């Protein structure tokens, strides 16, 4: 008989790397628990429009994987939950404290969203990167898994209307935080990455000038479940016709504490430029770059394809962004090829923000230290032979927890993590 709190592998993070690792192990008949701090599994990939360089639909790739993970009999998923601490008791023997936060909605929720209609509160929708509002009771997004509502208690007006109108009686304000101990034989860290906060570069005007947006905000404008009815400027709803991308915002920049390349910004910007030319055929798109790093399979052809579509590439570092009265933006930049400091006017600026480590994992380990690399990612102790191996035997790393990488590399890394974990569980890798 299986014990309810005992698992072969604990996977921290339910993004693409966590799901891939979980599915690989679960298909080998190991019992897996995924702990995800967000309200849904799927990570950041589930919010993407298309992937580069194939331009396949991101949601179409990730949703079947999300469903397969959620329905797998060997996988238990805890969303809106965190691992507070992990203690290693011996080989194949870890204990962890699981914190389940209250959602204030039970699993009886059918996702009908009647509560959302009635809720009087409007706050910024974090799943649309604050471009539009959401209610205090809300289904996170249309393809969320589990597709059940949650109550943002910090912003709830406590009017009780949601409870009154819920046809499934699924609202439960009596829920409280729950802590429990779980016993696991191995751990996979798949906590993913954080995006650079462009407020840290005030000269780019993000937050002050509404027509300066992040690439993730543009990504949301390019998906079918977009916040607006078309690609529009957040300031005044104008359809932009002259869009600029500022690459390396918060990466390859010692002054903001992130000297390394994020590996994905060049290609996702080129991808968005191509999609924009599809959505707004009359628009001009200019990409300001330091170097175009098109290193993967098909990446260079993808870059050439964008050039062929008349995307303009200017080798130059943008130093300052100013706003005009009509909401247009003046970019002051150094054109490296011409050797001049120039200015150009655009009506929308997209900051291609870099990737930063998510260091949530670092404080979890109680009686044993997990080593970090020079940039605060999980240190891979044997990168060539065992890329998922960390400084703790039995703890492995998958995806961007070990460094910036794109989606195919994350999936590959998750494959390595699951096979090394299986080896460890069978008494092999130490």
């Amino acid at each position, binding site marked *: 008989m299986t014990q309810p709190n005992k698992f072969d592998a604990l996977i921290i993070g339910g993004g693409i790397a966590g799901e891939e690792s979980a599915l690989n192990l679960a298909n080998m008949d190991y019992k897996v628990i995924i702990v995800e701090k967000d309200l849904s599994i799927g990570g950041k990939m589930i919010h993407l429009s298309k992937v580069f360089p194939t331009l396949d639909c991101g949601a179409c790739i990730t949703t079947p994987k999300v469903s397969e993970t959620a329905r797998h009999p060997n996988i238990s998923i805890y969303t809106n939950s965190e691992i507070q601490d992990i203690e290693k008791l011996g080989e194949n023997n870890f204990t962890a404290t699981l914190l389940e936060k209250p959602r204030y909605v039970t699993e009886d929720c059918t996702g009908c969203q009647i509560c959302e209609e009635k809720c009087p509160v409007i706050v910024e929708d974090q799943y649309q990167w604050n471009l539009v509002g959401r209610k205090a009771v809300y289904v996170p997004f249309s393809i969320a898994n589990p597709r059940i509502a949650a109550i943002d208690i910090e912003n*709830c007006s406590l009017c009780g209307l949601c409870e009154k109108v819920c046809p499934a009686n699924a609202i439960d304000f009596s829920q409280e935080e729950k802590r429990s101990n779980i016993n696991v034989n191995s751990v996979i860290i798949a906590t993913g990455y954080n995006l650079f906060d462009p407020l840290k570069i005030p000269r780019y005007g993000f937050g002050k000038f509404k027509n300066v947006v992040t690439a993730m905000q543009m990504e949301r404008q390019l998906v079918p479940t977009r916040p607006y009815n078309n690609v529009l400027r957040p300031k*005044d709803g104008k359809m932009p016709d002259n869009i600029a991308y500022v690459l390396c915002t918060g990466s390859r920049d010692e002054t903001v504490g992130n000297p390394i390349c994020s590996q994905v910004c060049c290609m996702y910007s080129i991808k968005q430029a191509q999609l924009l030319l599809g959505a707004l055929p009359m628009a001009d798109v200019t990409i300001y770059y330091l170097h175009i790093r098109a290193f993967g399979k098909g990446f260079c052809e993808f870059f050439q394809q964008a050039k062929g579509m008349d995307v303009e590439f200017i080798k130059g570092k943008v130093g300052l962004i100013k706003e005009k009265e009509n909401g247009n933006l003046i970019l002051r930049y150094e054109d490296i090829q011409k050797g001049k400091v120039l200015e150009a006017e655009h009506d929308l600026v997209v900051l291609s923000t870099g990737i930063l480590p998510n260091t949530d994992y670092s404080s979890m380990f109680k009686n044993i230290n997990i080593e970090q690399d020079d940039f605060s990612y999980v240190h891979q102790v044997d990168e060539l032979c065992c890329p998922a191996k960390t400084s703790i035997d039995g703890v492995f790393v998958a995806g961007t927890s070990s460094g910036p990488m794109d989606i195919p590399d994350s999936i590959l890394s998750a494959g390595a993590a699951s096979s090394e974990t299986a080896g460890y569980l069978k008494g092999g890798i130490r």
Partner: protein
Amino acid sequence: MKKTIDIIKQKRTVPPGVKEGVKMFNKLKKEIFKVLKEKEMTILEIANEINADVDSITFNLMTCLKFGTIEVGKLDDNDEYYYYKLKNR
């Protein structure tokens, strides 16, 4: 049956910012609906009509669009701005 809202009301109070936010959204929504009752308008026209920040009109109008109380009309003559109208006007 006792509603569970009473349980949480004993533990929490509503932060003043939340009440303020609800009031402001309802006020702005009312004003947007009032001007759109007359005719279709672009975001800039609405902002001029009710003398409000254009970016807060965009945010709140798009929120109403998301919840289905506003719908999109045609593009203006310069193909720059959409007109918006009340649903079932």
